[in-house]
């Protein structure tokens, strides 16, 4: 067992009674509960964690939070494996398996590191410069780039974990559980407001957990956190969500949060999600997201052992580990002096403080000097020794303007460099909310300016860096937010806090090295994407003056960390080259998510059987039990055909199609849209909506209708029946039901509100069974004795009420097959009973159940169109040869004006025709292109396409319909349908193939 030799005996919030075993790159280590993977690796003296993206440089741990650009980990194996996780955020558990990324064959010896040797071949914009021409090779280039791109590996198969979503509403949402956030939550919570407090880490307190030199109300900060959280937990309307990153800030104070519910447990308990996506709507938002420390840009500042100064403090105080035994602090501000003191307190050694400021005074500097630590004022680090871990540095004095160095270099041994370049307030969410940023020259950072949503920023994210001021601001803004959300209550007194006072910083965006920039070592700006200060300057010289262009050209800020540590440095360096003010150069756009989010969380439970609702009829279970094959029709699942005894698709369809014409077939037609229409003006309304005449339809009579859009194109069709005085029953296509109802409401509400008529959907009120065929009357007569079924008493296009198999029913004598047919509507609960009774009664006629495919063949034999198959939104009734249904007398109907345009009747339009193949056994593929002048290969002039095509056993040959340019005048012509492997010769005909005289309708 490798001991945790860098563990500090008396520091940290880890639970030493709970050792945890984990592996990194196959090697076993021990940490404690409460460790992150990063802190546990540091405890074991492991500092080489990964390889950089482009140059494969050895990389360690830079930060202690979600901004970490370097220490990216592939976690777990198999389908649970997840790439690019930040070691600084991973809480360790027993059995955790972590692996480094972007290295081969292993982390310590990585072949890809050869890129670093040839770094001059990989300047800024390398891909743009190299893979530009010839354009025809782009596909090959892309293949190579894709292989080299990316860091971790995607899991191989489907995600086995459970993800959930939840909608939450709050008076006040507070983002960030540090001092300002906790203070805000307490102030808001005390008013009785509904408060949600979310923090991305596993512990409340934020920066307070990393400090040992401050007090709140005379208490240690951790104690104040504990008491405050306990108070919040006791408030029934306050919801505390840990491990929840607020990832996006959208319009209307709608925010999303990704809660890692059980990632830290290794395996989720049964029925518990791995992660949960929060969809939060808040009346007011208080952002208390803190600030991120900036790296300094100096020679070889990416070596393992170079760490952010505040992160060093976090590792020492929060996790009780020493990131190095002998540190050099490199800084441009006072805050890093706290790190020196914290290291001393934890029995680490501080070799020196290197400060770019000319002269450093104040209590922190005094305290450091009192410990005997040398402070190199007006100095910079000019080189770093050690590649896989820092072993030493050289420092030199800065020249007058800080762009060069003078004097001689002094060497210092160290294994840790704690750097601080100042602080960037975490303005990501503020910026996502469309708030305007402003530049604070004191901090040399962007801070929130004008907000554009109901939000406020408290504490460090607002540029309020002092603890006491942050707490005060939190209390004030928390209480204010609650008040604005409608809750009364005075703001409580802010807690009193003490901490060491700090002076100002000196922004020095590039620390000069011994050689010209870009020579002898690299000044890294973006660690994850390997962008250096030289790259940024080169891009600026090449003319990339816009920060958005700079970003894309150099890839600065385009890694999985989205440039949390690099963007402002890059921007400042660009401004320098352009000799422009930083605020005038601007920032790139902050976009959600704040940190990478699992796609599974966005899918939630919309997976497997809940992926998409499947609508079923009440007869579906019979079809299922009787071996039907199904097809999707919109969200409906409809019986497609009913194969028997190993029949093929074609055999089954041929049998079903013949059975209907020879005897009787039975179809579940329940999915047709149905709309109940009532009111004295119902007939007038129908008259305006349909193309044909509706004013004189008698009670008990049905009529086929065609609906057009305003553009004169066919929208829907169906049969509507007058079922009583001012009472109609409309049917629509299965897929068009919802649209048609909206269409009717829209015309009624916006154009004809004066018409007295109401519409209600009744699609699923009725189970509908259609029986078709010469024997259908006989079947009906067996089951229904209160209706006269003779053709005279019950003619085609009539409706009667009766009792079928004991069930009250509406019988419609309408037909989609051309055969004698009855559509029987019964209350849905009896749909199955009706079906079974019909099957029983039809036995002697060998009644044949059929599905949508046979329905399609039968209607095609008769030349009946299907909206959406023969039409596509560009087909008018004249194209379909259906001018017989367009009234010439009505003053108006929807689409009339468009339909009367001359061009709508142009003989050059695509028109519906029939196609008969030369070989009657050849069935054309639907969608096949029809051409007149055949060429050996495309392109050819296309006349149109095949819309419907089947084998018709009743015709003894294949039949097809097509939309063909000038089709009506082409009857008799021979055309061609070129296919992949052959050309089919076809003859143009009428689009009707069977029972041309319509003699079968009465049975």
């Amino acid at each position, binding site marked *: 067992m490798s001991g945790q030799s860098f563990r500090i005996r008396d520091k940290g919030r880890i639970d030493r009674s709970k050792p945890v075993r984990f592996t990194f790159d196959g090697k076993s280590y021990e940490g404690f509960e409460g460790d992150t993977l990063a802190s546990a690796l540091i405890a074991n003296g492991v500092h080489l964690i990964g390889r950089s993206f482009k140059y494969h440089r050895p990389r360690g741990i830079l930060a202690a939070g979600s901004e970490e650009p370097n220490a990216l980990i592939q976690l777990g194996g198999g389908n649970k494996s997840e790439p690019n996780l930040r070691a600084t955020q991973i809480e360790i558990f027993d059995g955790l398996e972590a692996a480094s990324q972007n290295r081969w064959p292993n982390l310590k010896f990585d072949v890809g590191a050869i890129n670093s040797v040839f770094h001059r071949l990989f300047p800024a914009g390398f891909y743009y410069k190299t893979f530009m021409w010839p354009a025809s090779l782009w596909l090959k280039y892309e293949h190579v780039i894709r292989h080299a791109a990316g860091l971790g590996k995607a899991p191989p198969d489907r995600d086995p974990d459970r993800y959930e*979503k939840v909608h939450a509403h709050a008076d006040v949402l507070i983002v960030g559980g540090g001092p300002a956030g906790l203070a805000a939550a307490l102030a808001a919570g005390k008013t009785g407001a509904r408060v949600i407090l979310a923090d991305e880490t596993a512990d409340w307190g934020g920066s307070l957990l990393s400090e040992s030199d401050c007090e709140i109300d005379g208490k240690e900060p951790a104690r104040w956190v504990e008491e405050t959280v306990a108070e919040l937990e006791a408030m029934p309307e306050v919801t505390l969500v840990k491990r929840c990153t607020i990832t996006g800030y959208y319009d209307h104070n709608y925010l999303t949060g990704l809660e890692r519910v059980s990632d830290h447990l290794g395996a989720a308990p049964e029925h518990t999600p791995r992660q949960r996506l929060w969809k939060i709507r808040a009346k007011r938002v208080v952002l208390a997201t803190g600030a991120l420390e900036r790296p300094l840009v100096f020679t070889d500042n990416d070596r393992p052992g170079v760490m952010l100064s505040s992160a060093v403090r976090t590792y020492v105080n929060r996790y009780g580990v020493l990131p190095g035994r002998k540190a050099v602090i490199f800084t441009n501000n006072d805050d890093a002096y706290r790190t020196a003191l914290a290291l001393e307190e934890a029995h680490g050694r501080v070799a020196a403080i290197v400060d770019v400021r000319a002269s450093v005074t104040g209590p922190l500097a005094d305290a450091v000097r009192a410990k005997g630590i040398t402070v190199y004022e007006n100095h910079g680090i000019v080189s770093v020794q050690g590649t896989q871990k820092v072993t030493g540095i050289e420092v030199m004095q800065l020249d007058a303007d800080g762009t060069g160095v003078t004097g001689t270099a002094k060497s210092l041994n160290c294994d840790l460099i704690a750097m601080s370049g100042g602080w960037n307030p975490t303005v990501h969410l503020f910026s996502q909310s469309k708030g305007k940023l402003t530049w604070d020259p004191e901090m040399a950072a962007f801070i929130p300016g004008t907000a554009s949503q109901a939000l406020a920023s408290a504490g460090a994210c607002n540029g309020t860096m002092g603890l006491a001021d942050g707490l005060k601001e939190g209390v004030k803004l928390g209480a204010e937010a609650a008040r604005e959300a409608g809750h009364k209550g005075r703001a409580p007194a802010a807690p009193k806090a003490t901490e060491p006072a700090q002076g100002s910083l000196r922004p020095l965006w590039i620390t000069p090295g011994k050689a010209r920039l870009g020579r002898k070592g690299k000044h890294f700006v973006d660690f994850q994407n390997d962008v250096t200060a030289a790259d940024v300057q080169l891009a600026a010289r090449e003319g990339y003056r816009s920060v958005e262009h700079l970003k894309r050209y150099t890839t600065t800020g385009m890694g999985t960390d989205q440039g949390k540590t690099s963007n402002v440095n890059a921007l400042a360096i660009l401004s320098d080259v352009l000799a422009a003010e930083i605020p005038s150069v601007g920032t790139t756009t902050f976009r959600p998510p704040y940190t990478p989010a699992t796609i599974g969380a966005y899918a939630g439970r919309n997976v497997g059987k*809940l992926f*998409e609702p499947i609508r079923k009829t009440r007869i579906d279970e019979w079809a299922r039990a009787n071996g039907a094959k199904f097809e999707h029709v919109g969200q409906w699942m409809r019986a497609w055909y009913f194969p028997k005894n190993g029949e093929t698709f074609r055999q089954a369809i041929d049998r079903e199609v013949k059975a209907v014409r020879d005897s009787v077939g039975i179809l579940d037609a329940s999915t047709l849209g149905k709309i109940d229409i009532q009111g004295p003006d119902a007939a007038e309304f129908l008259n305006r909506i349909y193309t044909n005449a509706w004013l004189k339809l008698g009670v008990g009579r049905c009529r086929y209708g065609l609906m057009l859009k305003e553009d004169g194109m066919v929208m829907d069709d169906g049969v509507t029946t007058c079922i009583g005085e001012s009472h109609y029953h409309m049917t629509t296509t299965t897929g068009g039901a919802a649209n048609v109802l909206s269409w009717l409401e829209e015309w009624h509400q916006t154009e004809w509100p004066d018409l007295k008529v*109401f519409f209600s959907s009744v699609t699923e009120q009725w189970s509908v069974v259609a029986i078709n065929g010469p024997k259908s009357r006989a079947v009906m007569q067996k089951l229904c004795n209160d209706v006269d079924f003779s053709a005279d008493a019950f003619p085609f296009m009539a409706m009667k009420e009766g009792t079928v198999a004991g069930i009250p029913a509406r019988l419609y004598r309408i037909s989609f097959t051309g055969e004698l047919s009855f559509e029987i509507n019964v209350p849905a609960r009896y749909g199955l*009973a009706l079906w079974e009774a019909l099957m029983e009664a039809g036995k002697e006629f060998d009644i044949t159940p059929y599905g949508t495919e046979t329905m399609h063949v039968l209607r095609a034999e008769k030349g009946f169109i299907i909206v959406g198959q023969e039409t596509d939104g560009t087909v008018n009734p004249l194209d379909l040869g259906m001018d017989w249904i367009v009234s010439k007398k009505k003053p108006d109907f929807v689409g009339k004006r468009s339909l009367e345009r001359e061009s709508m009747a142009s003989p050059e339009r695509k028109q519906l025709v029939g196609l008969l193949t030369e070989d009657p056994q050849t069935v054309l593929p639907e969608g096949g292109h029809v051409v007149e002048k055949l060429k050996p290969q495309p392109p050819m002039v296309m006349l149109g396409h095949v819309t419907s095509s089947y084998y018709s056993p009743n015709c003894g040959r294949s039949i097809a319909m097509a939309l063909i340019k000038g089709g009506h005048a082409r009857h008799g012509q021979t055309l061609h349908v070129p296919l992949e492997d052959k050309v089919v010769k076809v003859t143009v005909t009428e689009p009707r193939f069977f029972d041309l005289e319509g003699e079968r309708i009465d049975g």
Partner: protein
Amino acid sequence: MADLETLTARTPLDPLDIVIGGPSDAGVTLTEIPFQTRLVLRGLPSDKKFVSTVKKALGVELPAKPGTVASSKTARVLWTGPNEWMVYSDDTGLAAALTKAVSNLHAAVTDVTEHYTLIRLSGRHARDVMIKGCAIDLHPREFGPGQCAQSHLGRITVLFDQTDETPSYDILVRASFAEYLWMYLEDAGLEFGVRIENVG
């Protein structure tokens, strides 16, 4: 020939072969209420004759405020639109009676008993189940007994009202979507424990 009494009426959920039962301390219970009378009532609230006629027939004034519910001994009436209400009742004769009552008025009564089924979600975690898939704020300060809403639940549209403080929600779903909703609610309730109860 069969008569209605001997015929098997099937509910939209019957094909799922749902097993009644579950842990007694379950966080939520689910119940299908399949054949209650359900009517869509249309009419103009500005039509005093219509309003008074309906009040007499239903025993309660039509709710005028959006998203509210009014109840009488015989009926529960949910506001679903400016000229639209959903009426629930155990009285199987109500459709005919109400139709007759408004027959001379500009009004419409449409029987949608079979168009829908109703799933009752109840229990101490019922709200937690609802908010997994419904964006409406169901906090007791915002939504309580006597209120109804039409919204998405999971991937479908439903009409629901809260019927007590437990809380209980009566969720009206189109019959063809009932299987989806049932499976959705069972799945969403897993972490709290689900008991299936019989109606009555």
